[in-house]
C-alpha cells in the first residue's frame, strides 16, 4: 500500500514555549480512513492542523509521499494534494457557494479550477442548484458537504477532517461518513478527528488514541472498538456507551 503521509515525533503548539503535542507520530496509507480519538485537550485537532501547515512544528518531520514537507506553508500544501476541512468556520459564509468553490481552486490554473467546479456540481447537484446563494443560508449538513467539496477541488491525495460530524443530526452524520468512505474508494486517504468515537471507529480502517499530547494506543479500528481500556480511560465511557 502506498504511504501517503508520515508524521514523526511531532512537537507543536500555538506558542513555542507551550507545546501541545509532545512527539506524536502517525501515518496514513492510500485508500484508508484513519481516525484520531482521545479526550478533550489531547491534541487531536492540533495534530492535523500542524500537518496542514496551520500550527508551527517546532520539531519532528511531516512527509507527504516520501518528501519532507515540514514547515511548508498551508497554501503550498493545498497545491501539493493536502486538503484540510476545519471543524467550525469551514465555509466562507459571506461568499456564494460558487465563490467558495472558486477559492477552493486557488491552487489550480483557472481553466482547470472551472472544470473541477463543474465536476463538483455534477457530483453534488444541491450545490449547483444553490450556487449563487451565500453559504450562510446552508444547513449544517449542507455546509459540511460544501466544505468537503471545496477541499476536493484539487483532487487531494490526503484529506484532513476535523470533527466533520460535529453539530450534525445522526442521519446527516451517517450520510457524511458514507461520503468519506466514497472519497477513499476514489483513491484518497482520510485522516479524521472525531468525537463521535464509536461511529467513527466503525467506519475507519485504523485509529490512533492520543492523550495529553502523546500517542497512547493505535491499531485496527475494529480491534480498538472492542478494547475496554480505550472506552474507560480515554473516552470516559465504554465504547458501546459512546454514541
Amino acid at each position, binding site marked *: 500500500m502506498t504511504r501517503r503521509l508520515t508524521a514523526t515525533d511531532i512537537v507543536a503548539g500555538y506558542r513555542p514555549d507551550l507545546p501541545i503535542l509532545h512527539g506524536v507520530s502517525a501515518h496514513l496509507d492510500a485508500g484508508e480512513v484513519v481516525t484520531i480519538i482521545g479526550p478533550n485537550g489531547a491534541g487531536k485537532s492540533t495534530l492535523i492542523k500542524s500537518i496542514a501547515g*496551520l500550527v508551527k512544528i517546532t520539531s519532528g518531520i511531516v512527509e507527504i509521499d516520501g518528501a519532507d514537507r515540514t514547515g511548508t506553508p*498551508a497554501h503550498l500544501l493545498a497545491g501539493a494534494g493536502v486538503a484540510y476541512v*476545519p471543524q467550525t*468556520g469551514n465555509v466562507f459564509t459571506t461568499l456564494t457557494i460558487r465563490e467558495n468553490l472558486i477559492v*477552493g481552486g486557488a491552487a489550480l490554473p483557472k481553466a482547470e479550477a472551472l472544470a473541477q467546479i463543474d465536476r463538483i456540481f455534477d457530483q453534488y447537484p444541491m450545490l449547483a442548484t444553490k450556487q449563487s446563494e451565500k453559504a450562510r443560508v446552508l444547513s449544517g449538513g449542507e455546509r459540511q458537504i460544501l466544505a468537503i467539496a471545496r477541499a476536493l477541488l*484539487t483532487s487531494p491525495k490526503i484529506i484532513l477532517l476535523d470533527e466533520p460530524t460535529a453539530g450534525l443530526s445522526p442521519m446527516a452524520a451517517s450520510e457524511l461518513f458514507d461520503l468519506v468512505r466514497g472519497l477513499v474508494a476514489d483513491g484518497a486517504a482520510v485522516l479524521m478527528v472525531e468525537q463521535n468515537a464509536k461511529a467513527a471507529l466503525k467506519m475507519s480502517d485504523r485509529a490512533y488514541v492520543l492523550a495529553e499530547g502523546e500517542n497512547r494506543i493505535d491499531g485496527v479500528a475494529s480491534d480498538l472498538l472492542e478494547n475496554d481500556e480505550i472506552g474507560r480511560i480515554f473516552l470516559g465511557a465504554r465504547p458501546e456507551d459512546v454514541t
Partner: protein
Amino acid sequence: MILQHTADGILSGAIIGLGAIGLSFTMKILRFANFSHSELLTWGAYFGLIFVSVATAMGGFGGTFGPLSFGWPLILALVFAAVATSVLALLLHHLIFERLAKVTGHMTMVFASFGVALLLRNAVLLIFGADPIYYSNTLQFAVLLPGNVRVLPDQVFLLALTIVVVIALHLFMTRSRTGIAMRATAESPDLARVSGVNVNNVVRWVWVIGASGAAVAGVLYGLTVQLRPELGFALILPLFAAAILGGAGSLYGAVIGGLIVGLSENLSVMIIPTTYKPAVPFLLILAILYFRPQGLFGEKK
C-alpha cells in the same frame, strides 16, 4: 440652501469614500487601524503634482478638457500617482508592517502607524514646503444646476470618476479570482490558506488597492482645494468614520460611509456653528460603535 449643502456633502463624501476603501480593507484583512493611511492621500496628491509639473515643463499634452481646469496631464497623473503610491505602500509594508506583524501584536502596529504617519507627513513638508500649491491656476466658473445648486465642472468629474472606480473595484472583487480570494481572506485567513490562497499576495493586493484609492482621492481632493502637507491628516477622522460606519472590509460600506460622513458634515452647518463641523465624524464614530459596532455592512461576530 439645503440642496447646495447636499451637493457639497456628496462631493466631499465621494473623496472620503474613495480614501476609506483602503483603510477599511486594512482594518479587516491586516487587522490593524492604520493611522498612516491618510498620509497616502497626501503622497498621492504630491505624486500627481510631480507628474503634472514635469508634463507641463515638457510642454504638456495640449489644453484643458472643455470646462474642466485640466487636460491629459492630470488624467495621466492619476495613474502615475496610483502606481507611485502603491510602490510607497508596498515599501512601508515590507520594511515596517510585515516585519512587525511577525513579532508583535496589533496595538504595536497601530502605534507604529502613528510614527509612519509623522514620518510621511514631515517628508512632504521637507521636500515640497509648507506653502499651498495648485495643480492648475485656471479659473473655473461654477455651473448652475436646478435648485440653485452651484458645482464646479471639476467636481462633476470627481463624482463621475469615483463612480467609475467603485464599479471597477466591484467587478474586481466579485469577478476576479484575486478579488474573491481577498474577500475570503477578509473572512477567514486560515481557511483561505488551506484552500490554497497565498495570503501574502492578498495582503500586497490590499496595499495596492488601498494606496491606489488613496492616491486618486488625494489627487481629486487636491484638485478641488489645494495641496498642503496636512491634506491627508485633515481627513483622518472622516476616513476612520467612513470605514467604521461602513464596516471593516466592505467596499460598499466604505463608499456609503464616506457619503454619510460628507453629507453629515455639510448638512450639520445648517444647525450647528461651522467651527463644530470637524466634530461630526467623531460623533458618528461614537454612535455607530454604540448602536452597531460591526458597521452598516459588517458581519456580526
